C-alpha cells in the first residue's frame, strides 16, 4: 500500500497543474465550448495585443521579477560571505523563522505603511527634520517602475533564500572550503565568493528559480505595492477573469499563456546569465586577487540585511499601532488615542476568517504531512531515492506561475461542478503546501540514524511500531517544523483561495487583500496582524512543543 503513495502524491501535485494549463491553453486559442466558443482562433491573442497597457505590464512583470530575484540573491550572498559564523549572523539566523512566516501580504502592507509619503518613516521625521506638515506628493508606493513592489518582494525572498543557503552550506562543506581560502590568504568575502558560492549556488538553483517565477507573477503583493496604470500582467489577468464579458476570459487565458511564456523565457535568460557569471567568476577567481579592501562592502551588506529584516519587523509594528489607533493625522508620529475599538469592530470578522484559514491550512497541511511521510517511508522501504528529475517535478507547481494555471483549474473544476467549496480550495492549497513540506522534512527524515530502526527491529518491533514508536517521536521537532512551514504556506495563499473558492472561502489573506482597495489602515492592521499570527503561531508551537514534551530528554535538544 505504501508503494502507492509516491504516485498518488505526484498525481495530486501535478494533476491540478496539468489540468490547469490545459484549461488555460484551450481558451487562449479561442476554444471554450462551455461558453459557446468552439472554433480555434488567435483572436484572444489579438485582443491581448490590442490592450494598450500590454507593453508596460510585460516590462513590469519581467523587470520586477528579474530585479527582485537578483537583489535578493545578491543580498543573501553578500551577507553570508561577509558575516557567516559571526554573532551578527547568528542573530539574523534567529530572526529567520518569524521573518519567513510573515505572509507576503502582511509584509507588503507593513512596508507600504512605512515608506509611503504619509508613512511612519516620514511621520517620525516630520516636521522637525523635513519641515513637512503635509506628506510630499511623491510617488513612492505604487510607483510605475515597480520599485516598491520589488522592495516588498526582496524583504520576503531574502529570508527564504537565506534559509536555502543555510541548508546547503553543510552539504558543500563550506567551513572547510572557507578555511582553505583563508589559509591561502584570501579575505573572508573574497574567499567565500570564490570558493563557497559556486557550490552553494548549485544547491539553491531551483529555489532561486522559484523566487524568479514567483516574483514575476505575484498578485497579492502587486495589488498592494505595485502600480495600477497599468498593473503588472498577473494582476491584469486576474482583473480580466473578473470581468463579466466572456470574451475577456479568453483574453485572460491568452494573458496567462503569455505569462507562462515570459516566465519560461526569463528562466532561460537567467540560466544563460548563470553561464556568463560563471565564466566571469572563474576568470576572477583565477586572477588570484585576495580582496584586501572588502570591509566597506561587508558593512553595506550588513546594513542592507538588517534593513531588510528590520523593514518586516517595523512593518509589523506599524500594523500593530494602526490596529489600535484612533484618529491619526499627519505628521503625528503616534495616534491621538489608542484603544481596542478597531479590534472590537473587525475582530469578529477576522475571527471567522481565522477559522476558515485554520480549517483550510490545517487539513491541507495534515494531508501533505501524511503524503510526504508516506513517500519518505516508501523511499526507506524500497531504498530508492527520488533523483534530480523528481526534484524538478516537486518544484514544478512552484515554477509554473499561479496566474498561468489556476484560472484553467477553476474552469476545470467548474466543469466538474466541484469548484468553490472548501474541499477544492484545500486541494488547490495542497499543490503548494506539499513541495514545501517535503523540502522541509526530507533532509532531517533521511538524516535519521537507521541503525535505530535495526535495533528496534531486533527487539521485536515491526515496521509500523518502528515508525510510530521510534522514528516519529524522535523526529517530532522536524515534523512539527514541516507542519508549521505547510501552515504558513497555506495561510499566505491568495490566488488559489480567491479563484478556486469562488468567493465563498474567505481566509485572512483574501479578506486582507480585499481590504487593500479600501485603504482603511485600521482594518488592514487588524487583518494583517491576524494573518501574521496565523502563520507565526505554528512556528512558535513547533519550537515550544518538542521542548515541552522532551523537556527531560537532552538527547533530543537540537
Amino acid at each position, binding site marked *: 500500500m505504501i508503494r502507492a503513495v509516491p504516485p498518488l502524491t505526484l498525481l495530486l501535485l501535478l494533476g491540478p497543474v496539468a489540468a490547469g494549463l490545459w484549461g488555460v491553453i484551450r481558451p487562449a486559442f479561442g476554444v471554450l465550448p462551455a461558453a459557446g466558443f468552439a472554433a480555434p482562433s488567435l483572436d484572444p491573442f489579438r485582443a491581448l495585443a490590442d490592450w494598450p497597457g500590454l507593453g508596460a505590464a510585460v516590462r513590469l512583470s519581467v523587470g520586477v521579477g528579474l530585479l527582485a530575484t537578483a537583489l535578493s540573491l545578491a543580498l543573501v550572498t553578500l551577507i553570508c560571505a561577509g558575516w557567516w559564523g559571526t554573532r551578527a549572523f547568528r542573530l539574523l539566523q534567529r530572526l529567520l523563522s518569524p521573518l519567513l512566516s510573515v505572509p507576503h501580504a502582511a509584509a507588503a502592507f507593513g512596508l507600504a505603511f512605512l515608506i509611503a509619503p504619509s508613512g511612519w518613516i516620514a511621520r517620525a521625521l516630520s516636521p522637525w527634520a523635513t519641515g513637512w506638515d503635509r506628506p510630499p506628493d511623491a510617488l513612492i508606493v505604487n510607483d510605475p517602475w515597480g520599485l516598491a513592489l520589488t522592495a516588498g518582494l526582496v524583504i520576503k525572498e531574502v529570508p527564504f533564500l537565506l534559509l536555502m543557503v543555510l541548508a546547503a552550506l553543510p552539504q558543500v562543506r563550506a567551513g572547510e572550503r572557507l578555511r582553505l581560502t583563508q589559509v591561502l590568504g584570501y579575505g573572508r568575502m573574497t574567499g567565500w565568493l570564490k570558493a563557497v558560492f559556486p557550490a552553494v549556488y548549485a544547491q539553491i538553483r531551483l529555489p532561486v528559480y522559484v523566487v524568479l517565477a514567483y516574483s514575476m507573477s505575484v498578485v497579492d503583493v502587486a495589488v498592494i505595492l505595485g502600480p495600477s496604470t497599468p498593473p503588472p500582467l498577473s494582476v491584469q489577468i486576474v482583473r480580466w477573469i473578473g470581468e463579466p464579458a466572456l470574451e475577456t476570459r479568453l483574453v485572460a487565458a491568452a494573458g496567462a499563456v503569455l505569462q507562462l511564456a515570459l516566465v519560461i523565457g526569463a528562466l532561460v535568460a537567467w540560466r544563460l546569465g548563470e553561464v556568463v557569471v560563471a565564466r566571469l567568476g572563474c576568470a576572477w577567481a583565477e586572477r588570484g586577487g585576495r580582496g584586501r579592501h572588502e570591509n566597506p562592502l561587508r558593512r553595506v551588506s550588513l546594513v542592507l540585511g538588517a534593513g531588510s529584516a528590520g523593514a518586516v519587523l517595523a512593518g509589523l509594528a506599524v500594523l500593530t499601532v494602526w490596529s489600535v489607533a484612533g484618529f491619526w493625522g499627519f505628521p503625528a508620529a503616534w495616534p491621538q488615542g489608542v484603544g481596542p475599538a478597531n479590534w472590537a469592530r473587525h475582530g469578529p470578522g477576522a475571527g471567522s476568517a481565522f477559522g476558515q484559514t485554520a480549517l483550510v491550512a490545517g487539513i491541507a497541511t495534515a494531508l501533505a504531512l501524511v503524503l510526504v511521510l508516506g513517500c519518505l517511508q516508501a523511499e526507506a522501504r*524500497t*531504498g530508492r531515492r527520488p533523483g534530480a528529475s523528481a526534484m524538478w517535478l516537486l518544484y514544478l507547481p512552484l515554477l509554473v506561475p499561479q496566474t498561468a494555471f489556476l484560472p484553467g483549474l477553476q474552469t476545470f473544476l467548474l466543469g466538474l461542478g466541484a469548484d468553490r467549496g472548501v474541499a477544492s480550495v484545500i486541494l488547490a492549497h495542497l499543490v503548494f503546501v506539499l513541495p514545501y513540506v517535503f523540502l522541509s522534512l526530507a533532509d532531517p527524515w533521511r538524516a535519521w*540514524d537507521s*541503525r*535505530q*530502526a*535495526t*535495533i*528496534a*527491529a*531486533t*527487539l*521485536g*518491533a*515491526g515496521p509500523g*511500531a518502528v515508525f510510530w*514508536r*521510534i522514528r516519529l*517521536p*524522535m523526529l*517530532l521537532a522536524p515534523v512539527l517544523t514541516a507542519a508549521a512551514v505547510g501552515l504558513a504556506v497555506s495561510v499566505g495563499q491568495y490566488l488559489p483561495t480567491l479563484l478556486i473558492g469562488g468567493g465563498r472561502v474567505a481566509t485572512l489573506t483574501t479578506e486582507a487583500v480585499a481590504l487593500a482597495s479600501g485603504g482603511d489602515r485600521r482594518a488592514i492592521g487588524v487583518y494583517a496582524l491576524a494573518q501574521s499570527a496565523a502563520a507565526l503561531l505554528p512556528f512558535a508551537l513547533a519550537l515550544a512543543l518538542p521542548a515541552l514534551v*522532551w523537556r*527531560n*530528554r*537532552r*538527547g*533530543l535538544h537540537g
Partner: protein
Amino acid sequence: MDRGLKLERLVIRKGAEVLLRMDRAVPPGAVLTVMGPSGSGKSTLLAAITGTLDRAFALEGRILLDGRDITDLPPQARGVGLLFQDALLFPHLSVGGNLAFGLAAGGSRAARRDTVVAALSEVGLEGYAARDPATLSGGQRARVALMRTLLAEPRALLLDEPFSRLDADRRGQVRQLVFDRARARDLPVLLVTHDAEDARAAAGEVVTLSGKLG
C-alpha cells in the same frame, strides 16, 4: 535439536562480485569472532543475519537459529539481538522505557516494572529507571543497551564492534560483562571487531575476512 546459530553455505554478492562466503556454526555459549579490515563485509554479514541487508546485495545459503530457518523472516521475527558500537538508546524514552521496549509485550504493569528494575540492578544501575539516557556515561549506556537487548530474549547475540567507542579502562569491564551475561544465558555470540584484544577476550574461534574474495 540443532541448537545455536548456524550459517550454512552463506554467500553474499553485490552484483556479480562475491563479497563474502561463510559456513560456520556457533554453539550456545560460544563466541565466534569475525575480524577483518573495513570494507571486508563484516557489517554486511551482520545485516544478513538480522535481516536488514540492503537490496543491493544478494544472499545465498541458509541461516539457522536453534534449528529454525530464519533466512527469509522479517527482522523482528528472528530472535536475534544486536549491539552496535554506539549504545543507540532511544533518546525519547527513559532508561526504564528503553528496557521495557525490549521486553516482550504482555504481563502486568507491575511485573514489567519489576523485570526492568531487576535488569538494571543486574548491571549495577539500581534507581536509574527514570533517568534521561542522555545523562548517562558511555559505560552506563553500554550496559543499558546490553540489558535492553537481553530483555527481548534473543536466541543469539550479534556484536558490531560494541566496545570500540569506550575508553580503555571501561572497555575491559563492559566486554567482560557482555560475555558473562551472554554465557549465563547460553547464547551463541557473533562478534565483529578489528580489535585483537576483543578477539582474545572472546576466547573463541576467530575468522578473518581478507576483503574481497574472488
